[in-house]
């Protein structure tokens, strides 16, 4: 495919690694914000290609991972109702709540459906006028235009048996929380390319200046990530702290205006709780009052549910780049993608799950026999 295979070229990747090796003189800790980038880095072994002095730590950018357990329990309580068709993106189905997951609800007769796009919920609602169709609207800024359009279209076309269970999170407040922590180790960021394709990167500029950290908005292919790392290190080595755009083939500084306009009409900024991290002020979206009738929490008035996370889990520190999956005693033993204990194991984009999927829980000797998963 055009503009995809080119950005996976192994020879150019080797040259980029060589260039990084030459530019870097001091040890640096760089965080990739987005779970899709984490996945690409671990899958392609990019962290192992980099010189020893460059450490990549994995950020909080996996929306499935950071959706709080209470919200998952709420989703399950709604999905169990006999009058509800519960729709979700596929990666939410396996995430365990306090009592099972959406799959188990489905196998016990619940009407749980995986949708490709939020707009599919409108079709399902029209075809099932006697049912309530509820969409689990999770995501970062990337997904907000799609979820906003569902609420907008439902109101415009008066499809009133549709509602959204909203658990939307925003990246800049999470970066601010990470940088404000006394335990912070992160010195530079690979910014989230697809989040910025929607909202642009002007909000990152005051963060770069205030905390004196370089932020390079970066794509997802191996060459994108390596070039992003190189650009961050060039800034760090020369003492600069700016926002730069590696992903210029996809986005410009201002982002996508029509998408921003619809988001602003449908959603407003609210405090959000992040699984493993806690509440971050102004770090999410909720539906505006005009759309309150489409808010599933309002429509089904599910009570607050008390939940507790396993004490052993350090996913909160992993999400903030303070620790790595290997630092957790449960990693790969009690906690696996089949039986996830915490946030960063529940989705393929979570750091623990990505490490597990690419054999990082095995000893080095085992790795030689299973291959290294690189292209």
């Amino acid at each position, binding site marked *: 495919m055009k503009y995809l295979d080119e950005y996976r070229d192994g020879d150019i990747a080797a040259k980029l690694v060589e260039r990084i090796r030459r530019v870097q003189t001091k040890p640096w800790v760089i965080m990739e914000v987005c779970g899709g980038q984490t996945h690409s880095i671990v899958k392609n072994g990019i962290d192992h290609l980099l010189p020893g002095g460059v450490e990549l730590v994995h950020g909080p950018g996996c929306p499935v991972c950071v959706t709080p357990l209470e919200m998952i329990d709420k989703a399950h309580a709604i999905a169990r109702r006999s009058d509800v068709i519960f729709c979700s993106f596929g990666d939410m189905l396996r995430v365990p709540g306090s009592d099972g997951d959406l799959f188990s609800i489905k196998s016990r007769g619940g009407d749980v459906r995986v949708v490709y796009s939020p707009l599919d919920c*409108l079709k399902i609602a029209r075809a099932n006028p006697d049912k309530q169709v509820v969409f689990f609207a999770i995501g970062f800024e990337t997904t907000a235009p799609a979820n906003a*359009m569902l609420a907008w279209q439902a109101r415009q076309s008066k499809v009133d048996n549709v509602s959204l269970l909203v658990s939307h999170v925003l990246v800049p407040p999470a970066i601010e929380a990470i940088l404000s922590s006394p335990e912070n180790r992160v010195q530079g960021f690979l910014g989230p390319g*697809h989040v910025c394709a929607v909202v642009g990167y002007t909000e990152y500029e005051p963060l770069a200046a205030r905390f004196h950290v370089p932020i390079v908005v970066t794509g997802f292919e191996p060459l994108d990530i390596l070039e992003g790392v190189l650009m961050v290190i060039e800034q760090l080595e020369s003492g600069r702290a700016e926002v730069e755009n590696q992903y210029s083939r996809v986005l410009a500084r201002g982002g996508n205006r029509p998408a921003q306009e619809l988001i602003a009409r449908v959603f407003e900024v609210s405090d959000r709780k992040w699984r493993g991290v806690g509440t971050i002020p102004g770090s999410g979206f909720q539906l505006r009052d005009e759309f309150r009738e489409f808010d599933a929490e309002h429509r089904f008035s599910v009570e607050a549910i008390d939940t507790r996370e396993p004490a052993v889990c350090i996913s909160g520190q992993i999400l903030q780049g303070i620790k790595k999956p290997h630092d957790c005693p449960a990693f790969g033993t009690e906690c696996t993608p089949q039986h996830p204990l915490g946030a960063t194991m529940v989705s393929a984009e979570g750091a623990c799950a990505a490490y597990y999927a690419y054999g990082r829980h095995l000893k080095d000797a085992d790795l030689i026999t299973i291959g290294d998963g690189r292209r």
Partner: protein
Amino acid sequence: MCLAIPGKVVETFSNEGMHMARVQFGGVTREACLNYVPETRVGDYVLVHVGFAISRVDEEEARRTFEALAELDQLSELDAPVVEDGRGGAL
């Protein structure tokens, strides 16, 4: 989950007042909403996330970035590579 995939617009149409397209990703074709990239034409590449095109891929910019990286290749070729700890490898 924030992954968006580039695909080629092969047809545009409207449905329920929305600007839609059929977009080809390798061998697979799916529908996507074009409301957020209204100026898109057939033949353009768009980045699609959960059924919505969120941006157009700038072909000229894609080529420029790639050529700059390939150029880096040549520049690096000139000065002999220094591999100190043998950790280099093919991707």
